[in-house]
């Protein structure tokens, strides 16, 4: 009995230490964001700010850089990308899962091949292509290259394969066209998968830095991650209080969403491992 209590204590001790290490960066980020310059560099560290003046950091952060704009861009780009991905992936996934047509196996093979290619690989040619069409440094440059997700196709196909064939036959008898079958019959059955995929997609593109860095020059078009970088460059002297305020603002939406819908997030973000 005694050993088991000791073991339980040991378990909690180690896990709690780990937990502290995991959340500490967030805590410090918020803590610093609420401190004045003087407090930040004070030799005596304290977690809580001693004066309320630190809130100035947030005011300044929003005043100096178009932080709202970055967030808005983030929402626009993430929603745009996800809608495009769903719009293209769902019909294709249905055709791959449930229809017999010449070219299906080959298409499936290419989807699987596409799964192997990391997102940085097409960067150079896609950049050249966008340049040719004069689309660099625009929302299109942020959304278009991610408009298709082979993983989305693959995942939705896996979901659709579990839909009974009879259900589709019944829908055809009831007068639904193939397009209507995709949206009225298949989509509702794959909602859980689509939500998980949506989280994967949104988190990935909200946090993406590589591609926006390449495609965007104008600060007004920056996504949140790139926006923070503009923030740093603009503030050559680097005021860490304000930077942390900006960092907090950029991180807040996803972290809060995660805390609200943990199960969905964990399922979604570990989804790429199920392939």
């Amino acid at each position, binding site marked *: 009995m005694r050993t088991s209590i000791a073991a339980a204590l040991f378990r909690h001790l180690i896990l709690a230490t780990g937990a502290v290490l995991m959340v500490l960066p967030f805590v410090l980020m918020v803590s610093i964001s609420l401190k004045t310059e003087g407090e930040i560099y004070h030799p005596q560290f304290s977690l809580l700010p001693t004066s309320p003046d630190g809130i100035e950091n947030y005011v300044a952060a929003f005043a100096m850089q178009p932080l709202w704009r970055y967030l808005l861009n983030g929402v626009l780009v993430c929603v745009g990308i996800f809608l495009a991905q769903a719009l293209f992936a769902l019909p294709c996934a249905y055709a791959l899962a449930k229809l017999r047509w010449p070219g299906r196996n080959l298409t499936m093979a290419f989807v699987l091949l*596409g799964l192997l290619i990391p997102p*940085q690989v097409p960067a150079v040619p896609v950049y050249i292509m966008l340049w040719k069409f004069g689309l660099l440094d625009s929302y299109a440059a942020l959304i278009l290259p991610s408009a298709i997700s082979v993983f989305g196709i693959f995942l939705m196909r896996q979901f659709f394969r579990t839909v009974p064939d009879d259900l589709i036959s019944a829908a055809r008898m009831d007068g639904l066209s193939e397009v209507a079958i995709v949206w009225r019959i298949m989509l509702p059955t794959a909602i859980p998968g689509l939500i998980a995929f949506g989280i994967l997609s949104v988190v990935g593109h909200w946090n993406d830095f590589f591609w926006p860095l390449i495609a965007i020059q104008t600060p007004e078009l920056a996504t949140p991650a790139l926006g923070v970088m503009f923030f740093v460059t603009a503030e050559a002297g680097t005021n860490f209080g304000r930077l942390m305020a900006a960092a907090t603002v950029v991180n807040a939406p996803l972290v809060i969403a995660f805390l609200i819908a943990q199960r969905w997030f964990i399922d979604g973000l570990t989804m790429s491992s199920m392939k």
Partner: protein
Amino acid sequence: MAELATARHRSSASSASRRLIGRWVAETATAWSLAGPAVALMWLLLLGPAAAVVLLSFTDWSFGQPTMSWIGLGNFREMVADQLFRTSFLNTLVYVAFTMPLSVLLGLGAALLIESGTSGRGFYRTVFFLPVTATLLPMAFVFQFAYFHPTVGIINQTLSAFGLPTRDWLRDPDTALLALGVIGIWQSVGLNMVLFLAGLKGIPKDLYDAAALDGADGAWERFRRVTWPMLGPATLFVLTVTAIKSFQVFDTVIALTQGGPGNATNVLLFQMYQEGFSFLRSAYASALTCVFLLFVLVLTLLQVVLVDRKTHYG
């Protein structure tokens, strides 16, 4: 009656088959109209560009140049001689070798500890997973200031409190890459933990009972006889995923070190980015991309082959 029906329709047999072909054509067209847009985009944005990267790597083209010529393996020859490439490639390998084992081991440890008890499971899982959702770029600055800052950073404050020598972690060529690695580990442990938790859930409880009957009832024995062998495929998978992720280290480099000091944190993707988008040497950048792609493909294939082996003979 059946004979009647046959006779009635025999005359129209050939027109019937023509009609069937008509429906086949219509259905094929429907299928392609559903799949076609995605297939076209997949080629335009993924497969085509990936192929173009390979082709470009055999040319001397620079972005914006009117001409381009075929130079065969020229870029790869240059790469072999390129001191910077050797450095960045080595740095990348060191980074992977540092972060992958630690991140996987910590993820495994966290998963085992969480599963070993009943209290606090959900809480710990949430907390460990939190960094996975974080935006890495701003978090890099948190680490830069709160941890690695030469004077007010936690690390140096702690060291000096114990009277130990301090360093400027991010500006010291010996430690800069490892400092970035720490951030990488922090972000990836949670994902590995969740993957291991899923693996642990998949182990039938009977196996532990069977092992206990066979005399393996200590915690270590249980782990060695049951848990570890059963986790084999999951572990292999986590290792591959983590290695591929580590190989893509980029954000923290741009944010904190710009490849410095003295190329100590110049990694493959960073070099590719600079060549391709700062120096506009598209062909050379493509060749670097090829190396990157090759590495990822080899890792994936290795995993597939090993998992196959394991499941066949394990």
